[in-house]
């Protein structure tokens, strides 16, 4: 049953993404000032939102683990961090491509870019820490603490951005600006692609979560086997 649900979810995500790609490339017109390149934006912003949501959930799951000490929260936190990083990479890479065309440079030490990169590094560190701790209880506890620190520092870095001067374009979505800066058709497409990416992230989370749980079962069985020798 669960298998079939996952296959179904996977199929839906793929079809949705294909449909979105079709609209993005063949239906929607070029943007007035930027031309064709603006299309990376349909992955740039939804990728960022997806990654940010993953970071937030990783913090929540980790806190839940520390409160309840139930294994499922630990495996969920590990899985969601791993799922979030590719979306963070999507955000960074599309941003770099866009920057190369519009700004003429691949990278600039702009606070927003820097903080996105720092966040990715911090969460990569979280995964490294997990790998390095052999004992499952200690791994769950220490990486949960690290995830909370990571989230606090991502928020801190993000907030301190507002104090720095930035070269990055300002907010465009109508909820932030009150409308007027973005074509409604484009905003609608953004929402579509965000849902597609979230669906994909949900699917990946379900798969990785199960793998994490299996992995822990195997580790425990190995210990049990050792106790008989």
């Amino acid at each position: 049953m669960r298998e079939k649900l996952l296959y179904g979810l996977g199929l839906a995500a793929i079809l949705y993404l294909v449909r979105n790609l079709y609209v993005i490339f063949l239906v929607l017109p070029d943007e007035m000032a930027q031309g064709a390149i603006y299309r990376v934006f349909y992955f740039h912003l939804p990728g960022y939102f997806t990654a940010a949501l993953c970071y937030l959930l990783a913090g929540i799951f980790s806190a839940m683990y520390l409160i309840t000490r139930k294994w499922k929260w630990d495996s969920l936190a590990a899985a969601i961090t791993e799922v979030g990083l590719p979306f963070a990479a999507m955000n960074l890479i599309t941003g770099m491509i866009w920057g190369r065309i519009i700004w003429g440079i691949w990278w600039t030490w702009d606070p927003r870019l820097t903080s996105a990169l720092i966040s990715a590094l911090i969460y990569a560190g979280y995964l490294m820490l997990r790998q390095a701790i052999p004992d499952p209880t200690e791994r769950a506890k220490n990486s949960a603490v690290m995830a909370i620190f990571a989230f606090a520092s991502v928020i801190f870095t993000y907030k301190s951005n507002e104090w720095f001067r930035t070269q990055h374009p300002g907010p465009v979505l109508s909820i932030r600006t009150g409308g007027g800066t973005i074509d409604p058709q484009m905003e609608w497409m953004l929402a579509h692609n965000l849902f597609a990416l979230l669906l994909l992230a949900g699917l990946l989370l379900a798969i990785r979560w199960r793998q994490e749980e299996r992995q822990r079962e195997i580790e425990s069985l190995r210990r049990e086997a050792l106790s008989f020798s």
Partner: protein
Amino acid sequence: MQGSAVMLSAQGVWRYFGDFPALRDITFEIEAGACVALLGHNGAGKTTLLKLLARLAAPQKGTIAAPPLTDTGYLGHGLGLYEDLSAIENLRFWGELHGAAAEASTEWLKRVELDHVAAAPVRQFSRGMRQRVALGRAFQHFPKLLVLDEPFTGLDERSVKLLQEVLREALGRGSTIVLSSHQIPEVMALATRTLKLDRGRLV
């Protein structure tokens, strides 16, 4: 229960490594003044249980009732001494943390005949000398509860005698002792009762 108060008790205690239960449904009560020998093979869960009793870890299920840490003396596998500090500095440090009087450390060193090297760094001590200093860590503040993990293992002859002596004194004062050991004769000479663990279960 008959007349003597319960010093230490465990109620349905479980402790896991991952999904693997290292301790399964442990329940017992230990009366004040008892000397309990904890027996069992390697990996049976002795160290895990003693760590729970010394509040180094908490059980995932069940409860443990034990006296506060100021009234507990714990000896693990390590000596718990700082190599760069002198014998007296080491004992004073641990004594202060447990709220022992400053003279207690000096008296302990006198007792184990190390007062002449009290100011020398532990780094320069022989193995036997270190052991005699380290025992003071658990005994100098006269705790009501002593939790000792394999205390006789690796001790030289003199330290074994010393340990038996201070354990008897502690019992004489009414302290409660829980200790695990492979050296069955040394322990059985003192024990009033035994608990045996087999693969995480009390048997």
